[in-house]
């Protein structure tokens, strides 16, 4: 720590930070635009000017940019000096010259960094009285709105989009006061992280186009801390509601997980909550049709099924631990099945076992700090999107380290980039098809899953000869394995990433062996396994039985009633199998929030809550248990799945049903039942938590219209709904103090209305939130225990003559069930297809777009052909989770024929 003096007051600061970060970290108000806590400094906007003094006798001082100034011991600084205040006021006046001042019609208004900084700098009256420069805006796709006149030329957008996120189709154009930020031509932004521009741009140039459809100012949103429901990474988000509809998602900072950024699936996938296909009341089948019934009747029927015979429950990786647990309690542990395909179940079980033995699952922050990475068989961008953005920073670590050795601070963004030029650190990507990280990969490897596993095992063997040798490895592959092993060996902090993409246990085991060999060599290895769903790992930790056994039980007549929890089984197994399961049961109860193929088959359908209306705990692929909280009370008869199940247990006078009064009771029951889940108690404070005797308000202090927004129904203001399940309230009254991170409903503080106010909530800039980031890690293998190698090298892949190995290809937009129901995401989703390599397509005599017949065990379909030059011979790809064959578990051998 160093000591500095700002306006004569002493502060302890981290000497690795720059002066702006040091000042902001101490809560001092110093305006800035171009600096970004994750992207560092470029000194472009000149807004963060301060004065520094040579010594006590220096009365004049000199103006410097705080963001470009390193800390020196005992440095003398002034923010308040009149000359430098004047300077800052002049800068913002210049930046604002052509700004349209259209705050009332600007979507940024009320949470605008430019507004905040203008007020902070005291630029109250405009003097510029000439014509302003005006621009034509572009169509950028369904996610972002473009309003270039508001630009103040801070260059943050291009620094994020092009430099940080690796986007190619965007950039600055022209010069002087005409600088323009956009695409060469109108069109959909290609980068999967484009939505972050909403928060990165300090003005209203880039705003959320989905929010625009149902626009609400930040101050009018009721907000709650939640967790992204669209993959297993568990990015922390803030969701906002008004008038019973979910309006938008923004990032909720967590230094270990998502940091400052989300992927576009996570930001824009929320609109399934507002879908017209929502199930809004209980329904029961009458004369073949599902018809609405009252809640009490639904519960009666449900409990009568329980009395009628054996009941089995099918859980879900997209439901909370509590919901799965309540189902498990109702049907009994021996009748609780995983709502995923048996292959996915095996793979998930394998991944859990591997992580438990170690190395422990890495946080995204750990992966970012790695200085070399091997991605083995994982399509990171499409399965665990936020991690791809992390890996783009991983490849910069080598140069950040080098810069530091040359005494260039890490935050000196463009100096470090100049040093690195286009070079980057080692990243190896092995995948059956091209991935979106290939452009920063040192080398790629295209092969079938088994061959990818062999490459991995070969790397492990080179790293440690105690791990199994791979027989018959072709020389080029062996040489490549050598290069990969060398790079990982030379790295100080290597990372190994794999996961569910190839559907191959061998690939995951190979990745584990590489990570274990590195750990054995004493490296702090960052090891991560990508999973698909919000609570994939949590479901696995509850030890459900495989789905296939549910079918057997039904066939045996051991399943008079099947209860399906928030799951479309037709995505998990071939239609025939699901039909057989449903057909064998006398009663089918489905709990879900959206109508789908499975809900259509229900005899009794109970409306449950999507994430924004639910409370619960989920376990991310990092093994981090995180609690999410409802943004608004679910309307009508809709309630959490665990409440429906607890109600039934209550009617059956089962002890659980009578004792479960709120979420905490469920959390407690889960923690007591599963030692591995014991610490979920600490994922967030209990519902009884209070600050100065008060709950934490979900509504900001400027929330408007609460006395009148329901005046069309009744003129007296209704009593706000109670929330028995959390320490958050559905009101604006409450503790004006900073809550623990897990309960932070939004970031906002005096003078800082935009999301950049998060600066004020961190221990130090870009560090953990004060009091610790949200969530608890559940999987920490015992230190010093060295797990053995997995020793299962598969045979080399051999293409077959008239068959292809059909692998799944995930799509960030379209493959995930819930977000695919959001219109903006649906617009970006690919149409169903089957992909073949160029040679295989030629041998079939099929051209791009030709109709081909794909015949798999469990179904066949006619699909247009997509030619993907990278696909190895003998391997075909189908889009995961979308298209007519989405219930068939891949990879699988199948036939592909040209349709005549």
């Amino acid at each position: 720590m160093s000591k500095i003096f700002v306006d004569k007051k002493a502060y302890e600061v981290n000497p690795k930070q720059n002066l702006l970060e040091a000042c902001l970290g101490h809560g001092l108000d110093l305006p800035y635009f171009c600096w970004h806590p994750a992207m560092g400094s470029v000194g472009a906007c000149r807004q963060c000017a301060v004065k520094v003094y040579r010594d006590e006798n220096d009365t004049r001082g000199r103006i410097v940019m705080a963001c470009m100034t390193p800390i020196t011991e005992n440095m003398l600084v002034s923010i308040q000096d009149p000359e430098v205040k004047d300077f800052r006021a002049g800068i913002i006046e210049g930046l604002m010259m052509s700004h349209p001042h259209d705050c009332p019609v600007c979507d940024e208004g009320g949470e605008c960094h430019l507004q905040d900084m203008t007020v902070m700098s005291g630029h109250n009256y405009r003097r510029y009285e000439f014509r302003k420069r005006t621009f034509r805006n572009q169509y950028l796709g369904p996610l972002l709105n473009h309003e270039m006149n508001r630009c103040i030329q801070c260059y943050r957008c291009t620094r994020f989009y092009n430099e940080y996120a690796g986007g190619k189709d965007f950039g600055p154009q022209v010069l002087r006061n005409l600088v323009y930020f956009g695409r060469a031509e109108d069109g959909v932004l290609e980068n999967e992280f484009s939505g972050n521009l909403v928060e990165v741009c300090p003005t209203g140039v880039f705003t959320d186009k989905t929010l625009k459809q149902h626009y609400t100012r930040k101050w009018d949103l009721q907000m709650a801390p939640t967790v992204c429901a669209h993959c297993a990474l568990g990015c922390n988000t803030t969701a906002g509601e008004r008038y019973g509809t979910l309006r938008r998602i923004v990032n909720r900072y967590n230094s270990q997980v998502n940091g400052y950024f989300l992927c576009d699936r996570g930001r824009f996938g929320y609109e399934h909550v507002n879908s017209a296909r929502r199930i809004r009341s209980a329904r029961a089948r009458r004369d073949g049709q599902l018809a609405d019934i009252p809640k009490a009747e639904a519960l009666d029927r449900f409990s009568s099924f329980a009395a009628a015979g054996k009941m089995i429950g099918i859980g879900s990786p997209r439901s909370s631990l509590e919901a799965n647990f309540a189902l498990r309690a109702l049907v009994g542990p021996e009748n609780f099945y995983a709502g995923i395909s048996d292959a996915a179940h095996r793979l998930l079980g394998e991944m859990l076992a591997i992580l438990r033995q170690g190395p422990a699952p890495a946080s995204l922050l750990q992966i970012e700090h790695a200085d070399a990475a091997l991605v083995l068989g994982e399509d990171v961008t499409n399965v665990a999107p936020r991690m791809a953005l992390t890996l783009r920073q991983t490849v910069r670590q080598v140069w950040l380290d080098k810069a530091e050795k040359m005494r260039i601070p890490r935050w000196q963004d463009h100096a470090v980039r100049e040093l690195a030029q286009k070079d980057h650190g080692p990243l190896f990507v092995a995948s059956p098809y091209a991935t979106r990280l290939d452009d920063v990969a040192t080398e790629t490897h295209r092969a079938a899953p088994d061959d990818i596993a062999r490459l991995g095992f070969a790397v492990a063997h080179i790293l440690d000869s105690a791990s199994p040798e791979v027989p018959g490895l072709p020389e080029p592959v062996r040489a490549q394995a050598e290069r990969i092993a060398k790079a990982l060996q030379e790295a100080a902090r290597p990372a190994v990433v794999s996961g569910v993409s190839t559907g191959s246990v061998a690939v995951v085991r190979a990745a584990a062996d590489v990570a274990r060999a590195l750990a054995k060599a004493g490296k702090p290895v960052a090891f991560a396994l990508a999973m698909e769903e919000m609570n994939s790992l949590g479901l696995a930790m509850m030890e459900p039985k495989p789905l296939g056994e549910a079918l057997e039980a039904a066939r045996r007549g051991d399943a008079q009633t099947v209860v399906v929890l928030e799951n479309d089984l037709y995505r998990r197994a071939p239609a025939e199998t699901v039909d057989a399961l449903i057909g064998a049961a006398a009663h089918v109860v489905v709990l879900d929030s959206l109508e789908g193929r499975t809900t259509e088959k229900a005899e009794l359908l109970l409306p449950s809550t999507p994430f924004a209306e639910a409370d619960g705990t989920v376990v991310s692929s990092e093994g981090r248990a995180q609690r999410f909280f409802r943004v608004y009370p679910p309307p009508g008869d809709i309630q959490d799945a665990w409440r429906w199940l607890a109600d039934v247990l209550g009617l059956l006078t089962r002890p659980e049903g009578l004792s479960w009064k709120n979420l905490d009771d469920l959390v407690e029951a889960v923690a007591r039942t599963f030692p591995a889940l014991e610490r979920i108690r600490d994922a967030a404070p209990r519902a009884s938590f209070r600050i100065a005797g008060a709950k934490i308000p979900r509504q900001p202090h400027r929330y408007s219209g609460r006395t009148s927004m329901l005046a069309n129904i009744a003129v007296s203001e209704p009593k706000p709904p109670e929330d028995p399940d959390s320490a958050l309230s559905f009101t604006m009254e409450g503790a004006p103090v900073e809550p623990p991170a897990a309960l932070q409903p939004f970031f906002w503080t005096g003078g800082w209305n935009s999301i950049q106010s998060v600066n004020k909530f961190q221990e130090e800039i870009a560090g953990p939130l004060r009091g610790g980031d949200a969530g608890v890690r559940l999987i920490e293998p015992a230190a010093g225990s060295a797990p053995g190698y997995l020793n299962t090298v598969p045979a080399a892949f051999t293409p077959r003559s008239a068959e292809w190995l059909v692998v799944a290809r995930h799509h960030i937009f379209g493959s995930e069930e819930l977000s695919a129901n959001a219109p903006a995401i649906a617009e970006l989703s690919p149409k169903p297809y089957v992909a073949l390599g160029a040679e295989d397509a030629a041998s079939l005599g099929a051209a791009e777009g030709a109709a081909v017949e794909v015949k798999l065990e469990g179904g066949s379909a006619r699909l247009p052909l997509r030619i993907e030059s990278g696909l190895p011979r003998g391997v075909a790809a189908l889009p995961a989770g979308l298209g007519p064959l989405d219930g068939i578990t891949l990879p699988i051998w199948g036939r592909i024929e040209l349709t005549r």
Partner: protein
Amino acid sequence: MLTPEEQREIEEETAHFPVRRAACIDALRVVQKHRGWVSDDAVRDIAEFLGTSSDDIDSIATFYNLIFRKPVGRHVIMICDSVSCWVMGYDKMRDHLKARLGVEVGQTTSDGRFTLLPVVCLGACDRAPTMIVDGQLHANLDPQKIDEILERYK
């Protein structure tokens, strides 16, 4: 499509740099030399030739005011509007040109013969006012001299 000649010339330029993309300014100049201006298609072709994106090339193409992203006339007149020339009567020269050509600054004559553009100091302040036509400097201008000069460019 870049012509074989353009491709050859750009290829030569790339030899001077460690990365291909660094030759982008020269590539723009080569195309402009042959075609008078740089179209959207040409931006795309250059990007492909140098292995980068159109957005990348366009951000450079639009940065330089001497790379023309719109068609220009057969001859480009660039009149200096910086301090010395302004002191020495730039505005009279400009008005004369505008009247003679029947265009505003920034426009092209209807017969496609001339485009009139402003330019910053040409480094010939001692002989102000000045202008450049197709790369050739003309100094110590007066209206009569301008008329004579224009006659030389058909």
